[in-house]
């Protein structure tokens, strides 16, 4: 997993795949079995004391001492981290808690605690911001504000690593993604590339004359394409260069009226890559997802939530 400076990186995986464990390990909360990690060019956990000041993080659900106010909580963190106290008010304003900052955290909703957690991570004005499920518990307006906030932070030069299950948000916010399953990476790269790589190279083909579709299907099939015939169009899979289809059909006297790549969204790619798509009538268990260690993928045995 590699995150370039200044980008917003989505870190995705099914429940239990190891996202939070990875982030905890990166932040020195869990001892690693092996491997190599570095943040801002420095090996961790050895260099954590030196770079901690430049890394803001929230890991999993926000937890704070319930009897302190948000301002007290942030003020104490600022004191521990030698951050100027004026920064407390700045981040409270930033996350929308200014007017409720004097109330005890135990009176806060989950969304407000989440905002406080983000505020605590932003307190250091870090170079790297790690947010584990930052939209958890936020209302729709809050989710949109979080999206804007993250984009603004990235534009200001901050690198953001975002773990979330709200894949629509990830697709909107992130420049690149890493998808893991059972602790192993199954996809990595810029969002567009990951989507393109896993769209299956599918294109939708329409002809001027619908009656020519069987001829076109035979021609494409004869040239090694996987073709699915529909009533008014063909779906062709495994297409590297859509122009070859145009040329091939034109050579047969068949003229294309529409040639459109089939778009996929991150959710469908995620479900495909992790093999966690619900199957009606079946109940997928938490650890039933793709295993990338040479063993056969563990097929889901059920549909799970939403099935």
């Amino acid at each position, binding site marked *: 997993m590699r995150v370039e400076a200044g980008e917003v990186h989505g870190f995705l995986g099914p429940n239990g795949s190891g996202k939070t464990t990875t982030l905890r390990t990166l932040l020195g*909360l*869990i001892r690693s079995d092996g491997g190599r990690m570095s943040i801002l060019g420095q090996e961790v956990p050895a260099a954590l004391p030196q770079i901690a000041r430049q890394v803001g993080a929230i890991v999993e659900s926000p937890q704070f001492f319930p009897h302190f106010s948000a301002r007290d909580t942030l003020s*104490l963190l600022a*004191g521990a981290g030698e951050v100027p106290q004026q920064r407390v008010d700045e981040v409270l304003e930033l996350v929308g808690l200014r007017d409720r900052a004097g109330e005890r955290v135990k009176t806060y909703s989950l969304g407000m605690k989440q905002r406080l957690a983000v505020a605590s991570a932003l307190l250091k004005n870090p170079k790297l911001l790690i947010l584990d499920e930052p939209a958890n518990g936020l209302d729709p307006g809050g989710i949109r504000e979080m999206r804007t906030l993250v984009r603004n932070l990235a534009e200001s030069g901050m690198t953001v690593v975002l773990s979330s299950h709200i894949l629509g948000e990830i697709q909107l916010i992130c420049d690149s993604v890493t998808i893991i399953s059972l602790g192993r990476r199954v996809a990595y790269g810029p969002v567009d590339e990951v989507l393109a790589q896993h769209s299956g190279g599918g294109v939708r083909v329409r002809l001027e004359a619908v009656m020519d579709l069987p001829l076109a299907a035979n021609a494409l099939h004869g040239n090694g394409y996987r073709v699915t015939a529909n009533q008014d169009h063909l779906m062709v899979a495994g297409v590297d260069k859509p122009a070859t289809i145009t040329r091939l059909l034109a050579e047969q006297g068949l003229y294309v009226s529409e040639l459109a790549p089939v778009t996929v969204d991150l959710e469908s790619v995620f479900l495909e890559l992790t093999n966690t798509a619900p199957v009606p009538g079946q109940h997928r268990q938490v650890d039933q997802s793709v295993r990338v260690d040479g063993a056969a993928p563990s097929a889901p045995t059920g549909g799970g939530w939403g099935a």
Partner: protein
Amino acid sequence: MSLFRTELRRLAKRRFTRWMTAGGLLILALVVVGLFATNEKIGPEQWAEATRAADRSHAEQVRWAEQERASCERAKAAGEDVEYYPADCAEIAPPAREDIQAEWYLPSTFIFKANAPDMLVTLAGILAMVGFVVGASFIGAEWNTGGMMNLLLWRPKRLNVLLTKLGALLTGMLALALSASVAWFGILWLIGSWRGTTEGMTSGVWQSFLLTGLRGVVLVLVAATVGFALASLGRHTAMALGGAIAVMVVGQAGLAILLDLAQVRFGEAWLLPTYVYAWMTKTLTLEDWRSCNASYTGECNPATLDITWQHSSILFTVAVVIFLGGALWTLRRRDIA
């Protein structure tokens, strides 16, 4: 240094710290009120009243003796054999007036020199309990609410963080114990002045008192450290408090009964309060009443065992090393959940 100051602020801001400190001080205030209410200064008036009380008591004794002698003589005349009367009824005589001392009837008075050491034990005991629970809660609540994890994201050097927190706790408890001790001495002195006497204080006595007070402060710090370390080991305040209750109920009350049933020699030597008391009083002598060490006069004296403050200091050191060492070791080794 910023972390230390922040942790001191956190300690002072915590409601539990404030309530427990206030609770401890309230108990001490009640002790003061009790001392003030139950003691009074001894003057001519009190001596006169005590003398009158002694006279009344003597007169009552005389009356009782005469009644008993008359009963005895009646019983003898009737030929009754009453075992509890002497052979010669004339032997039933009242005590002499001088045998009944007036000072027995003096009201309770606070003698600073004699009573202050016990009061210092009271102060140290209450503050040690406050130190234990405040210490346990200070780190236990941090673990329990995720505050420790948040802090470690800012300060990844785990042992530094834990030891700085402990340092802040001990600094706070030291400030509390020192100021409470000074105030305690002052209040006891005032009670002695108003409700007793402050006579007999020499520099040696003052030095002894100061050393006792100092040992009390150390006891408070040891209790706070052990509470802190236990809660850190269990990552929850309840670990320390549960452990303390278990020790008191099973380890002390239960063990005391067991030792008594087993007729273990110097059974108290196995009980923690013995060492706390020995620490404060420098020496505690345990006696085995089932033994007999005959003196040259033929008197049968019980065997004794001295528990000294040095024994207590070894116990306290071992406890601190084991619990705090364990807390540091586990913090270093275990993952932060």
